[in-house]
């Protein structure tokens, strides 16, 4: 680890004051489960680390008629226990998928959304867009992207909560150096595919802070997450999908279906949503939605199998959202 200055402010304003405008100069520390290992591997070398865990306004879950507001440093185990989130099984299922008690206790929702990719070329110091994408394309791409991989970015976004939050229509409260900088951003606009090494996988500037996640009410919205996981533990899924569906009179009247771990961002499967629209959810329609979700997949050399996994994840997320058995182990 490079030596760094450290501060633990207790209010948002102080956090913002301590953040530098230059990418990489300062890093925000929350649970530390990703940043600290990145610093150990010299993949993050900030001059200053700003610990936001002492800012009490950033923590906790509250609900009102407008929905649910979650502070960015709320830990995953607290979310799992929060009755305010009982209408959002897609979120709880995604957290349960991270089957490490320690990671759930220490990891925060904000950190979960901002964690860096698991791409092994990135983690081994070759860069996120290694050799303009050729290292992945010609190397070992078994866990890499099957969508959105035309450019140099071929990694998959690491967040496991993002598909659920995107499907549920979450907004993010983001603050910056001045009061005018405060915005409520639709979460799907938060993520982006970096075009060069200094860009992150989200649109936050170095001096901005994600403070809260705001969920619209989910009553009447059936929702679920399905992850295809190789095994238990904190290991990341091979592919995942979250579905949020409004069902009226047995027919789907609105659907958001979002794939995870298949693209450099959470991947909205519009054609899957279109395919299920106007139909009841059953084995056939769910399977058709899964097939529609992957119709335009562009797998790399080693990850053709992920196309099927993504389709199955969509199918099973829909079935699970509608209260059916998935046909798999769970």
């Amino acid at each position, binding site marked *: 680890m*490079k*030596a*760094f*200055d*450290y*501060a*633990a402010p207790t*209010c948002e*304003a*102080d956090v*913002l*004051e*301590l953040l530098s*405008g230059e990418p990489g100069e300062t890093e925000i*520390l929350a649970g530390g*489960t990703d940043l*600290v*290992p990145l610093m150990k*591997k010299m993949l993050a070398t900030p001059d200053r*680390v700003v610990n936001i*865990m002492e800012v009490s306004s950033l923590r906790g879950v509250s609900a009102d008629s407008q929905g649910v507001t979650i502070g960015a440093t709320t830990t995953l*185990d607290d979310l799992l226990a929060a009755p305010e989130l009982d209408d959002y099984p897609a979120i709880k299922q995604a957290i349960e998928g991270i*089957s*490490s*008690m*320690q990671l759930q*206790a*220490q990891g925060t929702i904000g950190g979960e959304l901002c964690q860096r990719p698991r791409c092994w070329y990135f983690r081994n110091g070759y860069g996120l867009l290694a050799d303009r994408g050729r290292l992945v394309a010609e190397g070992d791409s078994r866990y890499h992207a099957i*969508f959105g991989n035309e450019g140099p970015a071929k990694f998959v976004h690491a967040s496991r909560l993002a598909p659920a939050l*995107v499907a549920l*229509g979450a907004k993010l409260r983001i603050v*910056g*150096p*001045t009061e005018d900088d405060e*915005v409520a*951003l639709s979460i*799907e606009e*938060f*993520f*982006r*595919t970096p075009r060069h090494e200094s860009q992150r996988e989200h*649109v936050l500037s170095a*001096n*901005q802070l994600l403070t809260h996640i705001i969920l619209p009410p989910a009553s009447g919205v059936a929702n679920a997450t399905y992850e295809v996981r190789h095994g*238990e533990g*904190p290991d990341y899924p091979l592919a995942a999908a979250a579905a*949020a569906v409004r069902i009226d009179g047995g027919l789907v009247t*609105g*659907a958001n279906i*979002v794939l995870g771990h298949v*693209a450099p*961002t959470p*991947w909205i499967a*519009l054609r899957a949503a*279109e395919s299920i*629209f*106007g*139909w009841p959810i059953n084995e056939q*329609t769910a*399977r058709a939605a899964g097939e529609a979700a992957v119709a335009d997949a562009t797998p790399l050399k080693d990850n053709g199998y992920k196309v099927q996994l993504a389709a199955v994840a969509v199918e099973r997320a829909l079935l699970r959202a509608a209260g059916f058995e998935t046909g798999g182990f769970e």
Partner: protein
Amino acid sequence: MQDHEHPQRPDSGFSRRAFLRGSGAAAAATALATGPGLADAAQNQNAQKTAVVSGKGTQQIKLTVNGKSHQVEVETRSTLLDVLRYQLDLTGAKPVSIDETSGACTVIVDGKPVSANTLLAVACVGKRIQTVESLGGERPDAVATAFVHNDAMQCGFCTPGFVVAVRAFLDKNPRATEAEIRKGLNGNICRCGTYANVIEAALEVVKGGKK
């Protein structure tokens, strides 16, 4: 199974009724407006000042470990694991991976099981830190003795972390079933393969002691 009837696509303009538009990469292009730089913010007279601890040299901090307050000398980059092992000689928490993956350095901080190797020591000031050593001594914790009765150890390097994890898990789930144990204790790695015995040990504690 393959030749099911493909549902017809509704002819109404669906995409307008979907909650979302567009696909991830395309939709997320909007950059946020960035405000003035740090220098301007610093001039804001209302801003409260937070002490910045220098990364050069070491600092004296106080950590509360196993109920005792300790004065230790740390760098800002020292992890809690470094301090426990090298300053307090509490070597029960083990360095196995650079991150959370192994669970071998599990300690309980303010009642929660966390990894000492991903926590900065400076961030642990004022917190209650409990290590595996607090489960030993003259009257060892029931989890530790259950590990012994059920031989839930071989080389033993993962064992202290596992003992702490089981303690924390059972504190939260004192009546855990076998299925819950199999689901709940996946944060720890054992290479010798003691999992079957760990399950038995945890069940023994749930059932209230030695079989």
